[in-house]
């Protein structure tokens, strides 16, 4: 069966299910009795198993099957949720993620069987549950590996206790139990495929509780020309028979109806098992109230996954096209605005202006809507962090808790895709370097459980993400010593550097202050990578720290990458745009207020000394006329540093569409971050103020 076309869907859905599993396991760890979580986990594991099976990922299927078993035990009360169990299950999740990674890379699940985990899980179940449980485990309907040497005659098939119970249970409920022997045509080439179709056909009508040979063997074509099935169904025997014989290359069936309860002496021991079957009923009926048939339970369970948001998957390229069209529209609108500005005064100008304002409102709204379509909540990235912190907590033997706030803050999809790794790195950093060990914390009078906080919020045209901890903070002196030792700075520099400059050293390549290299962090690639990544997204990062109190990394990202609000300025007779995000204020400064410090021009603005940058010089523009007495200075900021850009004339604020300058033009200084098209069709360059501060 060619399933490659479903691979993408499989990967997406598997991701979702793994996420659900991870979330619910976290909940379960806190509240071991939370039935809702248990059911949710069971469903997710079950769906995963089914999907992996359909796609032919046997190992993945096996592992999820074991997880499903464990949860059916938990559900039936045979197994208590303990920390150890959650640990093993998290290991299973990791293994499943590893499978998924492999599948994403190569469309193959690889050869890792994860026997160790499965064995642990098995041992756990046999140790933690009542005696019959482990046997029953291996006998779960879908996949028992029981050595079954009996003849194909259904009467001789040995039923496991719980299977007998399931049958009895069904009979009590007035459902029909049939045995079928299905004969496959001897010329059939793909016997397993035909068997699969038979299974599918039956699952629509009822439940297969037992097959001989096992499902696994049938899928592997380890059967002759016939196989036997025990089926529970609400439908008549003829209907089931017809459904099976409807599958092509099926030669025929032999069927039998079991109408009497199978009795034996093991019933009492199997009590919990009975409960399992019973419990399926309410879970299913709540999903499909109009079909309260027990027999339909397994089929419905598969579709009973948690209700997902009503969404349509849209190719990001289509959104890009839409975005480009909006950009065009905004350019056209800017054109009309500039025409109306130059040719005012006419009789019609008032209504013309009204229409333009209307158009402006529409384009702005359209732009916002398209932007919103591209937006995703940061939750999609942060949801994997609780588990990561939990793992780290175990690995580092430190107690810590992660608090995430503002996870509904939205960011552009392209940014979301890229921001995960840097955030993960910062969190690891906090866990490893930031937080002290529990003993030390207790000594210092802090809560022994370290706190890591991830907070996201929108601030104007930026989104700010803060990653902080209440650990030791950055020891500036230690960093200084380390930098000296490593030769990053000279002793003279060390003398004169401010604390802030020292902390900035942390963002330099190959600078790790971790005393010992752990596999969590401290391999020398670190904050510099984070910084590079964030800058490539048009954002920046800074750090605030207080020795003994903790440190906070503050990431600032632009809300959008394509359209920004900018201040248009004129220098000489050229027009430039400066992103409004980096502008603090605009000041009129008397020529005489410019002072010199170390041969550099500065102004003293309300107590802070700000260096002056003459844009003419930076941009190689000839200064034409005599300098006026009052100068216009645009104060820009980057973090807490400021600079004043000396310009000739202000044009005004405008919404601009950022276009790339292309690859041909060398732009080594990165001074020009792009170009934009003005209303009159002229091109203006965008100055990246961050490179000037």
């Amino acid at each position, binding site marked *: 069966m060619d399933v490659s076309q479903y691979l993408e869907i499989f990967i997406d859905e598997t991701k979702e299910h793994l996420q659900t599993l991870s979330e619910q396991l976290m909940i379960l760890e806190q509240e071991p009795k939370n039935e809702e979580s248990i059911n949710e986990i069971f469903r997710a594991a079950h769906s995963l198993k089914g999907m992996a099976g359909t796609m032919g990922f046997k190992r993945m299927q096996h592992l999820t099957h074991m997880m499903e078993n464990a949860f059916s035990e938990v559900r039936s009360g045979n197994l208590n949720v303990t920390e150890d169990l959650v640990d093993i299950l998290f290991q299973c999740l990791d293994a499943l993620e590893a499978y998924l990674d492999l599948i994403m890379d190569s469309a193959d699940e690889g050869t890792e069987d994860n026997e160790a985990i499965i064995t642990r899980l098995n041992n756990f179940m046999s140790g933690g549950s009542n005696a019959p449980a482990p046997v029953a485990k291996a006998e779960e309907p879908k996949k028992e590996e029981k050595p079954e040497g009996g003849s194909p005659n259904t009467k001789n098939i040995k039923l496991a206790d719980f299977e007998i119970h399931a049958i009895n249970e069904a009979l009590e409920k007035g459902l029909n139990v049939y045995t079928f022997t299905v004969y496959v045509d001897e010329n059939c080439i793909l016997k397993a495929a035909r068997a699969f179709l038979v299974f599918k056909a039956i699952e629509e009508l009822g439940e297969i509780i037992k097959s001989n040979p096992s499902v696994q063997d049938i899928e592997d074509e380890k059967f002759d020309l016939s196989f036997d099935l025990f089926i529970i169904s609400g439908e008549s025997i003829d209907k089931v028979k017809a459904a099976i014989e409807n599958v092509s290359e099926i030669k025929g069936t032999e069927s039998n109806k079991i109408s009497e309860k199978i009795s034996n002496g093991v019933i009492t021991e199997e009590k919990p098992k009975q409960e399992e079957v019973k419990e399926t009923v309410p879970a299913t009926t709540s999903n499909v109230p109009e079909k309260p048939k027990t027999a339909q339970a397994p089929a419905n369970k598969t579709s009973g996954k948690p209700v997902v948001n009503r969404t349509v998957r849209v190719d990001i390229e289509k959104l890009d096209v839409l975005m480009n069209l909006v950009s065009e529209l905004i350019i056209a609108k800017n054109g009309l605005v500039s025409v109306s500005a130059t040719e005012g005064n006419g009789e019609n100008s008032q209504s013309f202006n009204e229409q333009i304002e209307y158009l402006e409102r529409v384009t702005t709204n359209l732009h916002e809507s398209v932007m919103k379509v591209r937006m995703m909540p940061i939750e999609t990235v942060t949801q994997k962090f609780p588990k990561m912190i939990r793992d780290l907590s175990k690995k580092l033997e430190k107690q810590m808790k992660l608090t995430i706030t503002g996870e509904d803050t939205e960011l552009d999809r392209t940014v979301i895709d890229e921001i995960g790794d840097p955030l993960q790195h910062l969190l690891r950093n906090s866990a490893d370097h930031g937080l002290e060990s529990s003993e030390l914390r207790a000594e210092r009078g802090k809560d022994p459980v370290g706190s890591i906080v991830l907070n996201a919020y929108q601030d104007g045209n930026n989104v700010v993400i803060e990653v902080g901890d209440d650990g030791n903070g950055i020891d500036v002196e230690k960093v200084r010593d380390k930098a000296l030792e490593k030769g990053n700075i000279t002793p003279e520099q060390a003398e004169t550097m401010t604390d802030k400059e020292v902390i900035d050293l942390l963002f330099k390549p190959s600078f790790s202050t971790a005393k010992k290299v752990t596999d969590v962090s401290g391999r020398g690639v670190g904050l510099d990578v984070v910084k590079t990544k964030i800058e490539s997204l048009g954002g920046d990062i800074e750090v605030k720290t207080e020795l003994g109190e903790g440190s906070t990394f503050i990431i600032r990202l632009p809300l959008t990458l394509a359209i920004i609000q900018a201040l248009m300025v004129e220098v000489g007779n*050229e027009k430039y745009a400066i992103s409004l995000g980096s502008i603090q204020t605009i000041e009129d400064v008397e020529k005489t207020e410019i002072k010199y410090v170390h041969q550099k021009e500065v102004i003293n603005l309300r107590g802070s000394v700000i260096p002056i940058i003459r844009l003419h010089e930076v941009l190689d523009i000839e200064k034409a006329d005599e300098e006026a007495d009052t100068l216009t200075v645009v104060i820009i900021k980057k973090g807490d540093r400021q600079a004043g850009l000396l310009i000739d004339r202000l044009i005004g604020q405008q919404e601009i569409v950022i*276009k790339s*300058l292309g690859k*041909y*033009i060398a732009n080594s200084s990165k001074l020009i971050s792009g170009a934009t098209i003005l209303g009159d069709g002229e*091109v203006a*360059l965008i100055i990246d103020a961050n490179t000037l501060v």
Partner: protein
Amino acid sequence: MDNNKTEYNSVQYIVVNLGDEQYGIDIKYVDNIVRLQKITRVPKAQNFFNGVINLRGEIIPVMSVRKRFGLEADIFTDKTRIIVIKPEQQEAIGILVDVVKEVVTLKEDQIEKVYADGNDEKSKFITAVGKSHDNLISLMNINGVLDFQTL
């Protein structure tokens, strides 16, 4: 048969003037020919770039072939044109020429290869010379002209 063969091997060139010399540009690279418009200077760019223009909403860099070839600076007249070139798999770029003259069809036997002198960086710009109506046309090697790596 013969006819087919000659047609197959003929190439159309746009003939332009740069000073007194005639240059040919393979028509398959030419996306557009536009009149001179306001070129926005880009600070700190390579000296042979005049800047960028807006071509129907796209930002296109404009290069002076004269400066690239080491000729004297451009004199802008109303005959000056920007030829927008779109090489395969690459971004479009505009080049400034004095005059666009005509389109000629050159057959294989009208084209003579010029062998590159490895020491002369400029020799990669012109790889062949075409003969048409007693005129000699230097045929530009677009990939060479746009190869900025060796600079």
